[in-house]
């Protein structure tokens, strides 16, 4: 299995590189939507590890994204002048380093959130992660060095098709390989029945923390790409609404259903664009969709088989 998954990853990276070479052929709007799709797939897949496979409920994914976005953006803007010559004047190398640093910073934040999660379940955890997300936003609003509530401007335009699609592919591969490894069965066990998993000798706390750290890492990298794509970030952009958006992608796709979540992330991104003309009604449709889905198909739109994993 893993060998085949690695071939898939390689193929995905090649396709990403191929598309990247054709960047000039696409119009700007299409490119914009495609990049957003890539970022959203990464976010949804990383949240799927926490909410879907491990059965925890995090409502603070936008917070991790913010940590990654700000860390990466600070490295390429404020520290860029010092770091760029050190890396041989290669902007893409600096971008890569910034993304990794952003991911690590977010992973650290994930560790901080994951630690209290060892005592909390379900709705309490949801509220605490929500709280962490809000605290991150408030803190960013209060740091003048990163622009406070005005936001951070002048971030270089490093993001391209290859970076976003490769990131999405790596995120999908990592989560897939992690969950389908012998070790990774523990995530699903924790989701299915934590007490039974504990009784079988699974260290549930460790699994939860790993899920948070890995999920936060990819959210952070996605945030970094987002920052270098939009070239402007502000704390308000990483609020509760953003977290909900990612959660809806995971729910729509079906918790713990990887292809479903990827499909849902792409679908919702495109849907958001097409619904843009309806303005205010977009969010009303969005919320009705959540309620209707939970009543009619709580397992998600794209889950036909009985669920494996996923929170009950």
């Amino acid at each position, binding site marked *: 299995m893993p060998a085949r998954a690695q071939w898939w990853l390689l193929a995905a990276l090649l396709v990403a590189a191929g598309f990247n070479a054709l960047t000039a052929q696409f119009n700007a709007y299409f490119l914009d939507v495609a990049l957003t799709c890539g970022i959203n797939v990464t976010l949804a897949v990383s949240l799927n590890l926490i909410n879907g496979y491990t059965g925890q409920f995090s409502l603070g994914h936008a917070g991790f994204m913010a940590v990654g976005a700000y860390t990466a953006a600070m490295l390429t803007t404020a520290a860029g002048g010092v770091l760029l010559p050190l890396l041989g004047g290669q902007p893409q190398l600096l971008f890569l380093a910034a993304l990794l640093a952003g991911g690590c910073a977010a992973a650290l934040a994930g560790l901080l959130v994951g630690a209290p999660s060892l005592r909390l379940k*379900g709705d309490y955890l949801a509220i605490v992660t929500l709280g962490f997300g809000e605290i991150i936003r408030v803190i960013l609003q209060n740091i003048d060095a990163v622009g406070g509530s005005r936001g951070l401007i002048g971030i270089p335009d490093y993001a391209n098709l290859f970076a976003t699609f490769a990131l999405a592919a790596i995120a999908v591969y990592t989560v897939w390989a992690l969950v389908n490894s012998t070790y990774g069965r523990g995530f699903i066990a924790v989701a299915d029945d934590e007490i039974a998993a504990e009784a079988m000798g699974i260290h549930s706390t460790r699994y939860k923390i790993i899920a948070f750290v890995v999920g936060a890492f990819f959210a952070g990298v996605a945030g970094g790409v987002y920052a270098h794509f939009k070239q402007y970030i502000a704390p308000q952009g990483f609020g509760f609404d953003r977290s909900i958006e990612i959660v809806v992608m995971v729910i729509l796709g079906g918790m713990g259903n990887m292809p479903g979540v990827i499909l849902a992330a792409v679908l919702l991104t495109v849907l958001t664009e097409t619904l843009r003309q309806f303005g205010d009604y977009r969010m009303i449709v*969005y919320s*009705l969709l959540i309620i209707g889905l939970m009543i009619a198909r709580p397992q998600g739109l794209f889950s036909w088989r009985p669920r494996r994993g996923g929170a009950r």
Partner: protein
Amino acid sequence: MTEILQQLLNGLSLGAIYALIALGYTMVYGVLRFINFAHSDVFMVGAFAGYYLGHWLPTGTLGGGLLALCGAMLACAALGVLIERLAYRPLRGRSTLTVLITAIGVSLLLQNLGQRVFGANPRSFPQLFPRRDFQIDGVVVSSAQLAVFAVTLVLLFALRYVVMRTRIGTAMRALSFNPVAASLVGINNDFVISCTFALGSALAGAGGILYALNYPSIDPLMGTLPGLKAFVAAVLGGIGNIPGAAAGGLLLGLVETVVVALGGSTYRDAVAFGVLILILLLRPGGLLGRLQAEKV
């Protein structure tokens, strides 16, 4: 000294509003064991109901103010029952996460419908009650603050009476103790749950009006933060515990006001969440709550 007393007073009046909202969270949690995320938007609807009622009721008089308060409470009670009926009842018996996500959906729906119906721009809230400031030893008490204290006290005692002394209150307590046993002794669970939502939502409506009187700018997204903080207050006091919710609300209001007074006003929204994380780490059952061991 006056400064300290003044801050204490402001903190208590803010806390009293949190307490009113927190009661709704705690009561719903008591019977259904889930966090009603839409509660904060019922609070918002309460403020808007007061706004519209204030336009064709005599404002600035005690009678008009009380009428608006009762009207808003009724409107919110109806809204709460409606939400429970349409969104939560079909999910009875499903996992908490499913219900939690639905509640988030309802909350988003109310906010966005609000932006559509009421308009997204902030409105200034009419002065429903006679406006006057009282001075006691240099401490200023506004009539709006007095209204907060009076209404909260009355509602708290009324709630206590309903829950402890009436048949429906007894049924609520029975339901929160053991739903299956409650239905076995002839309690209509669905009806009791509807009543719980009505009561909790009415309290949120009152909270909405009182909040708007003290911070007279209302908009469809105004509920989110006070709602989240009230939830923190409910957890602080021990969720499912009615006196706990009241105590937690007052305490949180005080803490927040003290932080603002000490110069941390830009961090005021982070305070509540900091308190929440601390309490969940140190005493997950809340100050007055008792943690039950999980049985397999």
